[in-house]
């Protein structure tokens, strides 16, 4: 656990990178979606402008909003940012990767969600309660699926630490594995649910009766809303990075490998983001949102895939 300047540099760059790229990823997905619908779509930089616009606006608080309502945006943003900074993006071997493994990252997102759900209940409107209650229902289904995915991946790599897993899977000895494929599909399903994407929730509306996330944060405005939106961008980037680092770690630099491989790693990472973002946009355009009470079946399938992947590993270590 010796600390070198290189480690600090890599860790700092990661934190900065996720911070700057997160709105861009969302902007990119929106752009692709618009183009797929034969619309021109807003500029790639629109999410940044949205955040600045929100920052410049007044905060309008409900009369009976408590201190918890005002503290929640900061807490959720911090928890998600810390979680996002712990996922290797362009290089493994982060300075603080021993601080938290995959389970801790999932739990940090849980902390963020816990406070958001509480804030949804704070003002005491029907929309907030509706959003919170559905959000925790979806989380209750997504978390066991996520744990089984962690279990499956940790079984292959012999560790629940992300850097170790990424290094192991990037090595030549792994090859194609059925169980990892199953885990990947399950993780994509969980990621769709956790990020309130179609088909579980629709991120671009808050005037639908089936909405979840947007209903929960309906009372937020101004800088508070900006932080929550930013948190959502970061969370999407986190899941995409997680997919990339767990299942496609090729090209990722090893900490201490020198500047050149960092540059390559960053370039590869951006390409991966763009690829996953494009696929996500394609998928969202091609599918319709499902009813809220179909979500349990959707996430139940993810759970079963995770379990199946784990059990396959018991049958044969090479599956």
């Amino acid at each position: 656990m010796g600390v070198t300047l290189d480690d600090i540099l890599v860790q700092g760059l990661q934190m900065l990178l996720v911070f700057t790229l997160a709105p861009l990823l969302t902007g990119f997905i929106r752009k692709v979606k618009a183009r797929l619908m034969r619309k021109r779509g807003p500029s790639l930089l629109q999410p940044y402008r949205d955040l600045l616009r929100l920052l410049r606006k007044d905060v309008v608080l409900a009369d009976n909003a408590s201190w918890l309502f005002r503290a929640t945006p900061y807490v959720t943003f911090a928890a998600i940012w810390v979680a996002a900074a712990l996922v290797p993006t362009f290089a493994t071997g982060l300075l603080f990767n021993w601080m938290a493994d995959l389970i801790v990252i999932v739990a940090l997102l849980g902390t963020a969600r816990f406070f958001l759900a509480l804030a949804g209940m704070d003002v005491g409107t029907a929309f907030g309660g509706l959003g919170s209650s559905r959000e925790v229902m979806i989380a209750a289904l997504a978390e066991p699926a996520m744990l089984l995915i962690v279990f499956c991946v940790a079984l292959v790599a012999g560790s629940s630490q992300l850097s170790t897993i990424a290094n192991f899977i990037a090595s030549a000895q792994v090859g194609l594995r059925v169980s990892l494929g199953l885990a990947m599909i399950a993780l994509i399903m969980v990621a769709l649910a956790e990020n309130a994407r179609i088909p579980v929730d629709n991120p671009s509306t808050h005037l639908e009766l089936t909405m979840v996330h947007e209903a929960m944060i309906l009372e937020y405005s101004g800088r508070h809303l900006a932080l929550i939106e930013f948190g959502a961008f970061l969370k999407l980037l986190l899941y995409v990075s997680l997919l990339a680092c767990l299942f496609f770690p090729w090209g990722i630099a090893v900490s201490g490998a020198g500047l050149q491989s960092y540059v390559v790693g960053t370039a590869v990472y951006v390409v991966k983001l763009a690829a996953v973002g494009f696929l996500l946009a394609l998928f969202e355009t091609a599918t319709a949102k499902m009813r809220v009470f179909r979500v349990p079946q959707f996430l139940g399938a993810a759970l079963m895939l995770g379990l199946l992947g784990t059990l396959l590993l018991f049958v044969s270590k090479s599956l």
Partner: protein
Amino acid sequence: MMSAAALQLSYVGALLAVSVLAVVLARWRIGNAVIYGATLLLCSAAGLGVLRALIGDGAAVERLVLPIGLPWLGAHFRLDALSAFFLVVINLGGALASLYALGYGRHEHAPQRVLPFFPAFLAGMNMVLLADDAFSYLLSWEFMSLASWALVMAHHRQSGNAQAGYVYLVMASFGTLALLLAFGFLAGPAGDYGFDAIRAAPHSGAAATLVLVLMLLGAGSKAGLVPLHVWLPLAHPAAPSHVSALMSGVMTKVAIYGFIRVVFDLLGRPDWTASVVVLSLGGVTAVMGILYALMERDLKRLLAYSTIENVGIIFVGLGLALAFQANGQGLPAALAFTAALFHILNHSLFKSLLFFGAGAVLVATGERNMDRLGGLIHRMPATSIVFLIGAVAISALPPFNGFVSEWLTFQAVLQSPQLPQWGLKIMVPAIGGMLALAAALAAACFVKAYGASFLSRPRSPAAENAQEVDRFSIAAMAILALLCLLAGVFPGLVMDALAPVSAEILHIRLAGQTELPWLSIVPIDLRKGSYNGLLVLAFIAISATLGFLAILRLSPHAVRRAPAWGCGFAEPVPQAQYSPDSFAQPIRRVFGTLLFRARDHVTMPPPGSVAPAKFSAELHDLVWENLYGRIAAIIEAVSTRLNNMQLLSIRGYLSLVFATLVALLVVIAIWA
């Protein structure tokens, strides 16, 4: 200089003396302060004394024999690392409950029904932990049960409490019966009831299995394992809140102590099949407990059901330890065992905190029903902060303590591929999934509990006019909240303090954690997984502060207050907001349709009618209806039949006596 065991026993004696004193003092106003002050001092002294022994040198085992009890046996007492750890948990809970009661107890309208039994209850729990022979163990166990029963019946005129006391009494007797039989099998035909003799004797085959089953019935019913849990959500909330905290946070741990003492210590090494039973019971208990809690709208009953969930998590840890131990895998076994012990400590901390909070809400509003609470965060600022900490901690969220023990349990689950048995290999990941489900549902449950009682708009005038509670109560809750944070941020210290226990019971300890840099915890191997609560907390704090400062510069605008937006639809009455029941509706629909046969009924008036629409939710407690309902029906039927026996003639009775005599003689003839 007295030995440590003798010192602990003298505290027990002092508690009993306080109990007698309380009978006299309860009539006066000063009684409250004197009695709770005395129990506070005695529990602190007892807890700190053993804590020093546990951290200093846990290996020392001290024995003491008193010439009381059975004449040929005497009363054996023993203080070792396992009982020392539980003594710390119990006396910490006892001391803080006493501190809380210094304020809370002043609102008690019948102090003479609470004060004498409170010290007795504490003394009983302490004695169970010190007992070193079956007789004094069972005697102390019964003493503890009866004292707590008296406390449950303190407010016996309130509706439901008498029934709760009755069910508790029946289940406690059943549990003791199971324990009695278990010790009978352990002692064997020779009948030596000292724990040393039991430990030395070999146990195997059918007798060992029977002992395990009986312990699961006896200790499990006290701890609240599903389906033996039915008394718990009735009895725990019925007692005054500080006693509820003790019963939920501490007494369930005494039951778990009994299980560990017998199954891990006295019985030797059970077969791996035993772990399958314990694991599945634990998993089912965890999920069912929290689902019951989610369906509840009474705050204290919700907390009692959540105790059942946590007991399930602890039993999963113990089951994993059994599985690894049966296969001779020492380190993973020590990890799972440490996780279980850590969760025992954690649960005693946050469950006491939450019950104290519920008690504070009860004092402030007179309400336990969350349908009539709301908005307390504005009127009870201190209570709302500490209750929030308890809610975050129990929902297993970092950086608090609940997460650490949950994480350790998951780390133990991740070790399961090393197990050779296929049954376990397939089962343990599924149990891990159930644990994750229970954790996520716990978060949902406490969002509901906190959201409905502390957030949202007040749903009744009582909630609207609530006042913050007294300083003693807040101090007790604040200490617990601080301990929850400290145990979450410095988990290595706790794990090192638990090492002597695992060394004593499993003969292997985890590597020391406090020497590691940055105060990380690394249970097995750095490459396999590590966690650092301190850094997680520091990073969250730093990034939140950075975010706050940046925002302050970028967006200095003032905050404007306005009516709630709600998409333009202002709801005039507070009843229109989301209620606890409506919050649980999605989960009720997803899980409850099968497990509780939940049905929503909506009656819509015909078009044009001005009659109100009606909605009702139907729930069934299938365990209660199918298992206990059937048993009750059978007992009813049998006793109705046997009723005829009361009306026999003298000839009838004489021939019955004769037949019994003959039957017994035949039995003896066959036996001999």
